[in-house]
C-alpha cells in the first residue's frame, strides 16, 4: 500500500492528545448560545402556517384578518417571494420548499408566516389566515410514485437518463447506471445466486436542537442573521439569492449548533424570518417546534432496493447487481444515484451493475443525513452478502476479506482505488476479541462493512498572533463535534506552542471568505489543512522578523518549538527568539503578524468501516436488544482520539436507531403520524451498550498530518450489522428496516408456520 512515508509512525507533541475542548466550560454551564438563545431589542416572534394536506392546490390565501389583529406586524405568503432564481432549478426548488407557491406538496409545507409581538398573538394570527385548498390525491410511497397512474407532483419532470427523454411528465426524476464488466456472464459463472428485495423507511437526523434563527433586515438593505447551521456561508448565499439581496449585505453569524448530521445544510425557515423582518422592519426570531422539525425539514429517502449477488464456491463474487429506488421528498434529487455509487464500493468486483431510479413523493424535501443514501443500500447489499456467504458455507468475515476492494481495484462507481482501508478494517474485525467472545442464548452476532466518500471543499482560515505572543484562529467551518479543539491542536503543533496558547473561533460571514459547510466529513479535514497552511505562512513571517532583528539572512533562521532559531556556524550560538518576543517586537519589525490560507481541500480520500454487533432477540415479542457493539474505522490520523471515538459511537448509535425503531409513519391521509420524539423513537441511554471503538490510522497522503474525514462512515454499516445479528439470533431474514418488534415477530411466526 502506498502512503506518505513521512507520516507513518510520526510522533507529535500535542496532536493525538485528549485535550479539553475550548467550548467545554460554556457547554456545561449553560452559557453556550445556540440558535434560540439570542435576542434582539424589539424582536418579534415568527410563526409559520403549514399545510395539513399532503397534496393540494392553494387556490387562495386570505391574510386580511390576520394582518388586522393587534400586535401582528407582518404576514407573508409566496407573494412576498418573487422568483429571483433565474432558471436555476435547484434554487427554485429551495424557494418553493421554503414557501409553497401554487401547490402544497406535503403535510407541513409552509404556506404563510406571521411576525407578532408575542407568541400568543402570533398563534392567534395563524388561526385567522384562511387558506382555500383544493385537495389532490397524494403519493407517499416510493414504489407507488413510479406507477403510471400515480398522482403527479410536478408537471415539468421528464425522466432524465432515459433515451429518448419521455415527453410525458412523471414522478420519475432520473435514472442512472454504474458498473463495469458483464453481469450476465458473471451470474452464469456463479455457483450460488441470491436475489432479494429490501425496503427501508424514512428517518430523520433527529438533532436535539430545533432550527432557530434571529433575523434583522433594515430598510437600507443591511441584514443580520443569527442561526444554527452547518454552513453559515451557504445559508447566506442561498437566502440572499432567494430574497434578491446582495450577499455582502447579509451578515450571518452561526450560533453553537445543537446537532445537524446533514439536516442543517439546507435552508428551511430562514428566508421566512428574513422576509418577515424586512416587512415588519423589526428583528424576528423564528424557532421551529419539534413537530415542524419532523414535518418540514429534510429527512432521508425511504427506499426500495433489489439486490442480486452471485458467487463461486471458493468464495469469489462473480457478479453483483442492484436496482435502487429512492425519493427526494417533494422535490427532485439524486439520492438513489448516490446509493448506486456507494452500494458495492467495498468490493473488488469483476462484474457489477447498479441502476438508480429517483422519484418525488408527497413528503418533505429530502436532505443529507450522514453519509446520505448509503446506509440504506448498505443494508440491502451487506444482508445479501451474508446470505451468499452462508449459502456457500463460508465465514462472513473471510468471505468479505476475500472480495474486499484494495489499491488498484476498479471501484463499482468507476475510478480505480488508490490506497484504501477496507482490508485493514476487516482484518482488524477478524482479529478483534469481540469476534471470538461467546454468545448468550437467543443472541446472534452480525457484521457489515461500509463505505463513504469524504470531501474537502472551499475553506479559509485566518491565523493571528496577538501582541502578547498568543494565537487566535478564525475559521469558517462550523464546529459540530469538537473541531475547534482539533484545529487548536494542529496550529499548536505547527507552531510548537502549548494547546492553550491557541484560541479558535468560528468567524461570521462578513469577516472571512466563503467556506463550504460542515458536511461530507470535511470539517476537521479541510479546516486543519487550511490552518496548517495559514500557520506556515505566519511562521514564514515570524522567521522574517527574527532575521530582521538578528540582521541575518532568512535562510539562516528556522522555526522550532515555538521559537526562531539561527542556524549555521556563524549565528548558531544566538539565543532563540520566542514567539512572545517576536510578537512584542512586531510594531517595530513590520506590524501585526498573521497567516492566511484560502484553499480548496480536494482529494479527501474515501473511508471504510467494519462493525460487529451482538443482538439478543426476544422470540416471543420480537424485541431486539443490542448487547455488544464494536466500530472499526480508519481515521488517517486521529487529531483528538476522544472526538474521533465520539464520531464513531454517535454514528453507530444513529444507525442502530434506524435499524430497530426509527421511521416516518404516514397515515392513509398522507399526514405524518409520529412527528415527535415520543413516537419517532431515537435510542435512549438504556437502549444501548457501551460502543467499543478501534481507530486505525492509515495516514491520508494528501493531508499534512494524514487526516481523513471520520464523521459519516460510522452510520453506514449498522443497519446491516444489526440485521445480520438478528438473522443469526432468530433465524429470520429481515428485509425491511426498521426491524421493529412487530416486523420481527411476524417474521418469526412465518418461520414457524
Amino acid at each position: 500500500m502506498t502512503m506518505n512515508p513521512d507520516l507513518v509512525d510520526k510522533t507529535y507533541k500535542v496532536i493525538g492528545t485528549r485535550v479539553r475542548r475550548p467550548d467545554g466550560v460554556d457547554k456545561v454551564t449553560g452559557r453556550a448560545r445556540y440558535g434560540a438563545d439570542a435576542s434582539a431589542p424589539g424582536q418579534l416572534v415568527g410563526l409559520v402556517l403549514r399545510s395539513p394536506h399532503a397534496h393540494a392546490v392553494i387556490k387562495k390565501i386570505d391574510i386580511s384578518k390576520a394582518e388586522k389583529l393587534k400586535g401582528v406586524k407582518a404576514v407573508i405568503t409566496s407573494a412576498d417571494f418573487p422568483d429571483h432564481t433565474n432558471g436555476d432549478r435547484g434554487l427554485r426548488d429551495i424557494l418553493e420548499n421554503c414557501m409553497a407557491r401554487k401547490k402544497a406538496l406535503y403535510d407541513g409545507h409552509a404556506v404563510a408566516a406571521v411576525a407578532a409581538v408575542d407568541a400568543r398573538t402570533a398563534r392567534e394570527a395563524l388561526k385567522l389566515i384562511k387558506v382555500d385548498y383544493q385537495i389532490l390525491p397524494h403519493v407517499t410511497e416510493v414504489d407507488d410514485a413510479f406507477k403510471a397512474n400515480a398522482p403527479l407532483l410536478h408537471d415539468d419532470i421528464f425522466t432524465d437518463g432515459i433515451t429518448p427523454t419521455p415527453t410525458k411528465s412523471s414522478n420519475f426524476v432520473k435514472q442512472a447506471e454504474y458498473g463495469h464488466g458483464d453481469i450476465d456472464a458473471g451470474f452464469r459463472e456463479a455457483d450460488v445466486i441470491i436475489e432479494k428485495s429490501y425496503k427501508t423507511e424514512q428517518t430523520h437526523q433527529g438533532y436535539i436542537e430545533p432550527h432557530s434563527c434571529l433575523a434583522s433586515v433594515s430598510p437600507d438593505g443591511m441584514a443580520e442573521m443569527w442561526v444554527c447551521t452547518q454552513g453559515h456561508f451557504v445559508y447566506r448565499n442561498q437566502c440572499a439569492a432567494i430574497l434578491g439581496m446582495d450577499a455582502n449585505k447579509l451578515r450571518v453569524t452561526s450560533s453553537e449548533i445543537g446537532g445537524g448530521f446533514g439536516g442543517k445544510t439546507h435552508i428551511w425557515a430562514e428566508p421566512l424570518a428574513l422576509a418577515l423582518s424586512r416587512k415588519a422592519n423589526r428583528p424576528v426570531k423564528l424557532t421551529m417546534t419539534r413537530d415542524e422539525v419532523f414535518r418540514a425539514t429534510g429527512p432521508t429517502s425511504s427506499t426500495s432496493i433489489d439486490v442480486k449477488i452471485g458467487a463461486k464456491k471458493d468464495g469469489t463474487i462473480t457478479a453483483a447487481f442492484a436496482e435502487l429506488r429512492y425519493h427526494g421528498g417533494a422535490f427532485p434529487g439524486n439520492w438513489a444515484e448516490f446509493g448506486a455509487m456507494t452500494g458495492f464500493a467495498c468490493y473488488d468486483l469483476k462484474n457489477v451493475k447498479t441502476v438508480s431510479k429517483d422519484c418525488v413523493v408527497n413528503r418533505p424535501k429530502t436532505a443529507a443525513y450522514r453519509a446520505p443514501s448509503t446506509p440504506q443500500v448498505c443494508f440491502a447489499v451487506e444482508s445479501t452478502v451474508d446470505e451468499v456467504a452462508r449459502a456457500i458455507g463460508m465465514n462472513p468475515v473471510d468471505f468479505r476479506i476475500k472480495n474486499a476492494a484494495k489499491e488498484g481495484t476498479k471501484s463499482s462507481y468507476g475510478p480505480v482505488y488508490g490506497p484504501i482501508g477496507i482490508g485493514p478494517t476487516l482484518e482488524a474485525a477478524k482479529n478483534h476479541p469481540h469476534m471470538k467472545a461467546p454468545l448468550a442464548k437467543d443472541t446472534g452476532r452480525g457484521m457489515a462493512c461500509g463505505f463513504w466518500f469524504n470531501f474537502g471543499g472551499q475553506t479559509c482560515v485566518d491565523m493571528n498572533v496577538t501582541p502578547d505572543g498568543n494565537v487566535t484562529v478564525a475559521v469558517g467551518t462550523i464546529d459540530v463535534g469538537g473541531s475547534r479543539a482539533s484545529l487548536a491542536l494542529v496550529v499548536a503543533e505547527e507552531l510548537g506552542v502549548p494547546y492553550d496558547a491557541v484560541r479558535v473561533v468560528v468567524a461570521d460571514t462578513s469577516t472571512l471568505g466563503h467556506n463550504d459547510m460542515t458536511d461530507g466529513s470535511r470539517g476537521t479535514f479541510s479546516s486543519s489543512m487550511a490552518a496548517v497552511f495559514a500557520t506556515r505562512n505566519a511562521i514564514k513571517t515570524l522567521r522574517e522578523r527574527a532575521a530582521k532583528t538578528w540582521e541575518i539572512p532568512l535562510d539562516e533562521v528556522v522555526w522550532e518549538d515555538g521559537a526562531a532559531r539561527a542556524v549555521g556556524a556563524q549565528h548558531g550560538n544566538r539565543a532563540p527568539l520566542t514567539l512572545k518576543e517576536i510578537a512584542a517586537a512586531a510594531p517595530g519589525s513590520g506590524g501585526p503578524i498573521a497567516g492566511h490560507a484560502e484553499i480548496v481541500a480536494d482529494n479527501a480520500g474515501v473511508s471504510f468501516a467494519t462493525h460487529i454487533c451482538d443482538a439478543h432477540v426476544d422470540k416471543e415479542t420480537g424485541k431486539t436488544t443490542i448487547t455488544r457493539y464494536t466500530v472499526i474505522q480508519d481515521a488517517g490520523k486521529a487529531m483528538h482520539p476522544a472526538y474521533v471515538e465520539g464520531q464513531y459511537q454517535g454514528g453507530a448509535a444513529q444507525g442502530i436507531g434506524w435499524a430497530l425503531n426509527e421511521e416516518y409513519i404516514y397515515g392513509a391521509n398522507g399526514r405524518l403520524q409520529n412527528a415527535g420524539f415520543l413516537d419517532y423513537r431515537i435510542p435512549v441511554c438504556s437502549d444501548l451498550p457501551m460502543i467499543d471503538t478501534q481507530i486505525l490510522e492509515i495516514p491520508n497522503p494528501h493531508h499534512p498530518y494524514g487526516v481523513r474525514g471520520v464523521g459519516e462512515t460510522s452510520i453506514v454499516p449498522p443497519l446491516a450489522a444489526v440485521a445480520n445479528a438478528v438473522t443469526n439470533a432468530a433465524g429470520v431474514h429481515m428485509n425491511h428496516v426498521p426491524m421493529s418488534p412487530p416486523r420481527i415477530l411476524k417474521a418469526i411466526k412465518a418461520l414457524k408456520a
Partner: protein
Amino acid sequence: MSVHVKTTINGDQVEFVCGADEPLLDVLRNRLGLTGAKEGCGTGDCGACSVILDGRLVCSCLVLGAEMDGRSVETIEGMADGAKLHPLQQQFIDNAALQCGVCTPGFLMAAQALLRKNPDPTEEDIRFGLAGNLCRCTGYDKIVRAVQAAAKEMRG
C-alpha cells in the same frame, strides 16, 4: 391572565410575572435570561429542559411558571460553585461526554438528581437514570463514563 410569582432559583429570590399558561421553561429562558435549559421538544420527551424542582428532576416545559410561587428551582446556571465546576461538569469535559452540547445541561441536571439519590450507581442505574434525556451525538458511551467518573470522585 398574568400571574405574579415569587420563587427561589439557584438559591436566589426571584420575582416574575408570567402568563397563566406559560411553561416554566419559557419563563426561565425568555423572562429570566436563563437559557441553559433548552427546548428540544416542548413535550417532555427529550429532557433538554430538565431542572430540579423542590428536589425532584422535572422537565421545565411540563411545569407552569404560575406553579412556582414559594418553590425552589435548580438550573444548570447554578450548578458550579462560583468558578469551580461541579465534578459532573468537569468530568463531562474531561471525558468528551459532549459534542454539540445542547443536551448537556439537561444531562447534567439528570445526573445530579441521580447521584443525590444513588451515589454509587451501576452502569444500568445510570443508563435508566438518564433515559429521559436524549443525546443524538455521542451514543451515550462517554456520558455514562463521565457520570461514573464523577460519582467515583464525589464519593471520595
